[in-house]
């Protein structure tokens, strides 16, 4: 099998899809956080792979580093919010945050 850019895009799309489904069906906030990380890493796969096929500049590689750094900052705030939730509800299920309804 030839490895082309399309192969990497397909891999990225599959990873992204798994992450998105995980985010939507799971109710444990920690698992949802992991799903978001999976989606961001799918993006990284695509960025780095595209850079391999367009090596004029290193935009994709550079972008991937920024994604990793920002994802870490985001996860830090996310975990702080989870701790806040756990203190009040003794649970880390997003379905327990249900005081406000439409």
């Amino acid at each position, binding site marked *: 099998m030839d490895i082309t850019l399309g192969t990497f895009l397909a891999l990225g799309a599959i990873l992204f899809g798994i*992450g998105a489904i995980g985010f939507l069906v799971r109710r444990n906030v920690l698992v*949802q956080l992991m799903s978001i990380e999976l989606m961001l890493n799918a993006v990284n796969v695509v960025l780095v792979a595209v850079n391999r096929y367009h090596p004029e500049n290193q935009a994709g590689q550079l972008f991937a580093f920024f994604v990793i750094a920002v994802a870490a900052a985001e996860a830090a*705030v996310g975990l702080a919010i989870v701790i806040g939730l756990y203190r*009040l509800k003794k649970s880390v299920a997003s379905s327990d945050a249900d005081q406000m309804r439409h």
Partner: protein
Amino acid sequence: MNAWIAISPLLLLVVGGLLTMLVDAFSKEGKGEVATVTAATLFLAAGVSFAALLNGQDPQDVPEIFGAYLATDRLGLFFDVAIGLGGGLSALLAGGYLREHGLERGEFYILLLFSAFGAMVLARSTDMLTLFVGLETMSIGVYALAGFRRGSPRSIESALKYYLLGSFAAAILLFGAALIYAGTAHTDFAGIGAAVEGGHADVKLVLFGLLLVLVGLAFKVSAVPFHMWTPDVYEGAPTPATTFMSVVVKAAAFAVFVRVVITAFGDEMSSSSAGGWPPVLAGLAVVTMVYGNLAAIAQNSVKRMLAYSSIAHAGYILVGLAASSVVGQRAISAVLFYLMAYTVSNVLAFGSLILMGSRGREAVSFDDLAGVGRRHPLAALPFIIAVLTLMGFPPTAGFIGKYYVFSSAVEAGGGFIWLAVLGVLASAVGAYYYLRILVAMFMKDPIPGEPVAVPMRSGSVVAALVISGLAVMQMGLMPGDMLDLAVAAAEQLFAG
């Protein structure tokens, strides 16, 4: 004017942010000075940008690009004014609110300041990279602001919902950006635009990527059907944080929306009325206006009603954005003016609500406001102006903003005329729920046994209300000044 002056608002916020952290560390009792420094920094940034806009008569004076990542154009300066003003007023509101409700901690102002910095970066971004970094810098601060009242389950719920959906939306946007990069080999908006226009792009990948980017941005501006987080998050967050996210976050997200659709996808194929983004945005505008206004009617909480109202306003702005595919410059200048008018109007509305509550008796629902207008007429005055401008009643900023946006849609002709008609009808529906505030304040009596609303006393809240009230009336009575700036900013965007 050189590039350093053009990005001085950003530098000001960074220096001001560090200074605020120092002031916070050395202040013993109360956080009044932290609020003052924060508000002063943001107002200074807004003032510097405003002066730069007024003085740089010739658009050629302003260099187009600072590096390849940040724009130093008039559009960026215009949004610096909106963000600085919105952020500074939110800081003043926080100064009164946090003390009144016993939440006084310096972190609020520091988060607000750095979040406003992220908003400015986002509004100036000319590359998917700066778009992402600016978006996250802004959002991460706001997630923390939403959960600031740590002991309150509602506040934590608000932060959790905003965080989960916000980072999900950011991931979708990022995947779209990666697909656009895969299709065009460019991450900068100008390069993407050139590749798409020159036919070097993989059209399917790029259009799918664009769709994902639009979904991500629609989340941030809370357009229906990506609005589900908005009412809960706005209701649960401390009111100054709600103010901040309803004005600053929305303005910055719309700024980058404008840049993406005009600079990166302004070519004929992507901006044709048959395919590309205009029908997508028009569809979003229709459902957003209709749903936002109808859902607002059913609310008992004023804060929640204002959340739906902010969804409806996003719909009106999307009308102008969709019309920009035909009458580009005209529609974009209307959108810019509307965003500025919306910023001051919404600060006025949330500020009035803050003023109506005192310790332990935060005014939230229509019942909380019952009869307060007759007992405290002076405190009710800002609410009256806020209601008029959000309704779009002359002679306020809201009226002029709606007039420009809808008339630009009429000028665009074709299906856009129907968008304008729908917009006018939707705002007529809006009059009903905005006027309910006045009915509650002046014609209802407090429910016996329920706590009676007593307005708080706070100099900084009053200052915020006076500034935003004057701005609303100024932009309503003499819209020419602000409109000239909006037109010049739009002109330069299309020239470059």
